[in-house]
């Protein structure tokens, strides 16, 4: 019994059993082992394919294996979509799967549409390496890491934007100073793109002395001040600030994440405890009848010792408990006095309080 598959499925699915079975299969171990092994094999094959000799020699095998991998990925896409057509698109990892399937088909269509000598063909083949990202959903540790670090993306983006703006300003400045005239350094400051590259090189302080030497040869007077100022600002201040901000955010997000995990675990443990307690109560109330308990009580002898280590049977606990109850009793008695003063009708609380203190006394007596 196959229900309707598709995004416009009916709100009430008729094929619940099949759906549940497929869902169990997806969440089971067989499926994840299958996917992990497929993706790893795919990664290995791609590495082997870079070598021209091997590729020539095993051409047919690679073709067959490619079709196999593509079919496995499409199968995964289809059954996950079948289980949950609408909720499929809400999960980020599923979107990643869709993107990778699209990427997979890019070289094929490129070859078809543009012929075999299209210069951008190797770009299409290059991005096939992204297939290994499919491994991430199947590894719990990496998933938690990405969730924990996901908060830092906003910070990263804002710092990057700030850096870009600063580089933009300095690029325009540098272009006007060093690259606009004919006698200027057109190689490094000739147009905006090259200026950006030069500034990025200064930010990462790699090979900046050579760039500075180029400027010195042309005889620009202010170039040293400009370069040093930008290096101080971009590399020392900005990148260090980047590190500092990331440290704080990583700490916060990891702490928050761990706290969430801890809370979840705590709630689950508490729930378990409640369940066990409830079962125990039911069982005991089933078994306990008046006669049985009395009979049990008769077997208790005063000379039999019971050695306990529980906190609730220790002397300090009893002391604290009874002292706290005394204080509460005190509060009530004061309140009753206030009532007397105000002339309010007496509550029945006094009687209950008497019984309560009577019980306390009986505990002390037995002790």
């Amino acid at each position: 019994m196959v229900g309707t598959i598709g995004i416009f499925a009916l709100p009430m699915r008729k094929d619940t059993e099949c759906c549940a079975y497929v869902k169990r299969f997806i969440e089971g171990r067989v499926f994840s082992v299958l996917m992990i092994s497929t993706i790893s094999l795919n990664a290995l094959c791609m590495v082997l394919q870079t070598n021209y000799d091997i590729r020539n020699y095993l051409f047919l095998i690679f073709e067959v294996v490619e079709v196999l991998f593509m079919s496995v990925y499409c199968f995964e896409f289809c059954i996950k979509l079948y289980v949950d057509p609408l909720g499929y698109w809400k999960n980020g990892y599923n979107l990643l799967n869709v993107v990778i399937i699209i990427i997979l088909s890019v070289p094929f269509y490129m070859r078809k549409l543009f012929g075999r000598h299209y210069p951008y063909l190797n770009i299409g083949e290059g991005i096939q390496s992204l297939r290994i990202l499919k491994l991430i959903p199947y590894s719990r540790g990496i998933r938690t890491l990405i969730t924990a670090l996901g908060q830092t993306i906003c910070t990263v983006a804002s710092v990057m934007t700030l850096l870009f703006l600063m580089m933009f300003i300095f690029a325009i400045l540098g272009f006007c100073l060093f690259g606009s005239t004919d006698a200027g350094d057109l190689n490094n400051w000739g147009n905006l793109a090259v200026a950006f590259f030069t500034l990025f090189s200064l930010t990462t302080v790699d090979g900046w002395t050579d760039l500075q030497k180029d400027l010195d040869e042309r005889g620009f007077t202010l170039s040293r001040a400009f370069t040093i100022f930008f290096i101080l600002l971009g590399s020392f201040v900005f990148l260090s600030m980047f590190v500092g901000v990331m440290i704080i955010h990583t700490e916060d997000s990891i702490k928050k994440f761990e706290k969430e995990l801890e809370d979840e675990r705590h709630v689950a443990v508490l729930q378990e405890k409640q369940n066990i307690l409830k079962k125990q109560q039911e069982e005991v109330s089933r078994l306990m009848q008046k006669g049985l308990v009395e009979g049990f009580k008769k077997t208790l002898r005063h000379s039999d010792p019971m050695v306990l280590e529980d906190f609730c049977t220790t002397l300090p606990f009893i002391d604290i408990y009874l002292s706290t109850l005394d204080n509460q009793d005190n509060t009530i008695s004061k309140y009753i006095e206030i009532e007397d003063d105000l002339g309010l009708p007496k509550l029945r609380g006094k009687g209950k309080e008497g019984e309560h203190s009577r019980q306390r006394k009986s505990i002390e007596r037995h002790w």
Partner: protein
Amino acid sequence: MKSAELPEVSENFGPTAVTRADAVRSRLIDTFSLIDHFRGLSQAVPRHNLREFLDPARQRKLMLGDQHQLVRFSIRPGHNRILFAQRQQCRLRVRCNRWAPISLWAGWVLRKRIFINFVNCLIFLNTIFLMVEIELVNTTNVRMLPIMMALEVGSWFILFIFILEIVLFWLYNFFLFWKSAWNLFDFFVTTLSLLPEIVVLVGVTGESVWLQLLRICRVLRSLKLFARFRQIRVIILALVRALKTMTFLLVLLLIFFYIFALTGVYFFESYSRSDIQDLEYQMYFTDVPNSLVTVFILFTLDHWYALLQDAWRVPALSKAFSSLYVILWLLLGSIIFRNIIVAMMVTNFQAIRNELSEEATHSEMQHKASIFKRQIIKRRLNQKDGEKAKVRSSSGHITPQTSYHSASSLTGDMSQSENLVKTSVPKDLSTPQEYRLSSDSPGLVDWETHVHQNLHGLMEMDQDERVVWPRDSLFRYFELLEKLQYNIEERKQLQEFAVKALINLKDN
């Protein structure tokens, strides 16, 4: 036991009272193994004690009488830390040994401060000898020969002392040796420096390169220093822990390395195959191993712009994609990932430091908890005395006020640092102890807050404290405690009613 009535009453109350009462009842059931008893599974009552067992006549009668012959005992996990050294002194193998107890002597030697310092000095000396030897190894000066001989003999002597130390530890406890990672490291280093000599002795003369390498392993002996000093140990342990938490980050980094290496091979294909002369970095993207190394070079931000400019010289290479590749990898790998690693290291070190300080606060908390316990016991004792006095003096109506008076006087009496006092003063100050109250000073906590602050510490105390209860009293105690919970809950409800009534009165 009116347990049959209680389930009806419990429905009127809120969840907390029921859970507390239920907890008490399940404690009762647990302690007395009521379920087993009602199922008839076992004789839950301990009818015999150890003395009856040790008496042979009674023992025989017991064994014949009890058809299951089962013994119920409870296991208490011990918290003692008995060191191996302490245990060794009691073992029969050591005490009743036919020959001298060498393991005891070995343990004593290993723990002696003089011996430890001696071995440390030898490690230093070994390093110095090695340094001098390296300098002198290629001289042809004849006068240096005796010095060389002396250094060689010294090295051998030190090696023998190291071997002796390992043998001493084996004599002390063979299996404990292999459980510690530092000992394994010591063993590994010593065997590695011993290996070339053994190989030479056996007679293998060829492969002199390997012999040279093995001789160089002598230098590793200096690493033994790391295991000796406590500070270095702490740092290394902290480092290992930090690395362990960062495994997934490193796995993610490896995945990105793979992606960019593979992509690099394809993107720079035309650069690798270009015919233009003297391209500096042409071999850098030819196949995957080279590409991996190049990706690592870019990760360390070394000569990336030179590489890019060199690649641009090839016209077939698309400038946009290659620069996009390099810039993206620099941003992602070198800037973002490296700083994430730094951030995680810092977080880990902070966590480790917090843990270490937590241990210090733990012991402090224990101390506070024991002070708190003493306070409670004293307070209770005084309370009892106060009550007895009141009972003797006045009528039978025992008001809680008396107990409060004596309690607060007691607290004023104490010279501890924590002065607990109730902020409201009692009405009649008849007994003479009252004026010792440190009363009405704001800022001191009241009893309940004080209890809440210290209760956790009290519960976590490490003492192996056991309380002996008589059996029927314990049963009665649990029963009463359960009933008390219900009554307290009822009182709470009454209090709420009273408050509402008062508010209504005030409003009207």
